[in-house]
């Protein structure tokens, strides 16, 4: 084959290779596959299920504590929920029960702070979940219960 005939064939074949590469990319990676898949490590319903069960099991104790204002027995029961996270709070009609005295601080913006800086507040990186349930009292009054979980 002479050199004059070789040049167009080279162009055509290289272009065809490019087309094949693009088509393979297009069909296999774009049309048939998802680009970004995230795995949810945290199952959010866990808090809901725990809260429902906790309320069912300790219903009368919640009502009597709310009526008397003495939450010590309920706090003991609540302490058993140690597996939920590093910091767990239970709020019953604005009375807050804390596991190990942990304070549940509200989330706020990082405001330009970086983890490298010495005054960086690691609390901002914690995941926070909140689960709420409302229950009726003996005389149809409504009691609101909020479970807050913070995981560092």
């Amino acid at each position, binding site marked *: 084959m002479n050199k004059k005939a070789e040049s167009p064939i080279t*162009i055509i074949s290289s272009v065809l290779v490019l*087309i094949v590469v693009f088509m393979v990319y297009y069909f296999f990676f*774009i049309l048939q596959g*998802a680009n970004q898949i995230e795995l949810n490590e945290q199952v959010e319903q866990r808090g809901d299920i725990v809260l429902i069960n906790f309320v069912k099991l300790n219903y009368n104790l919640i009502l*009597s504590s709310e009526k008397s204002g003495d939450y010590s027995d309920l706090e003991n029961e609540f302490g058993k929920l140690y597996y939920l996270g590093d910091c767990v709070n239970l709020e019953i009609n604005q009375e807050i029960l804390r596991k190990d005295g942990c304070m549940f601080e509200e989330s706020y913006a990082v405001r330009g702070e970086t983890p490298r800086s010495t005054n960086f507040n690691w609390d901002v990186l914690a995941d926070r979940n909140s689960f709420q349930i409302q229950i*009726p009292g003996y005389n149809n009054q409504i009691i609101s219960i909020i479970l807050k979980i913070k995981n560092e």
Partner: protein
Amino acid sequence: MNKKAIATPLFVIFIIIILSTSIFLIKSNEKKDMVKFSIGETQSEIISAYLQSEKDNLFYEKLVEFNEYRSVKEFAETLPEIDGSFDFRGHFREILENNLKEYSPSITLGDNLMINFGKKKYYIQNQMLKLTYEREFIIAKQPIIDFSLLEGIKENGEYRIGQILNEDLEDEDIYTDIRIKYKPIF
């Protein structure tokens, strides 16, 4: 004119157009697919809606339970002098219905003491899903009072109606005085 001299540039231009179009399509599709797709997100939201309905169901169950306790006490205190045709079940049903309607007038109570709180809708909406989950709340409870036993009472006296939880959430036995109207035979 040489045919190759025309065909080759035309072919190159044609290929460039095809490649540009392909790049454009790939890029535009990439944007579409780059939307975050999280495994289990849809299922998670459906379960979340279901659990919300479970919370409501617990609320209604407890509402019925406490109103039943109050109604049993009221039933024992308000029982009139009765005759053979007195409807114990109807009397209790009326008291329970009044107590429940204090919470919500839309609650209906069937003859078989099935309490219907109506239907409630839960909306699940995200980028990939728009779903409505509807659940009807009907609470059926075995009444504390044994009405068949009451129907069999033929003498005046104090009778045990049942056991309830009182306002201090302690067990309390409820008794009532039953006075029976005697019709003269002659």
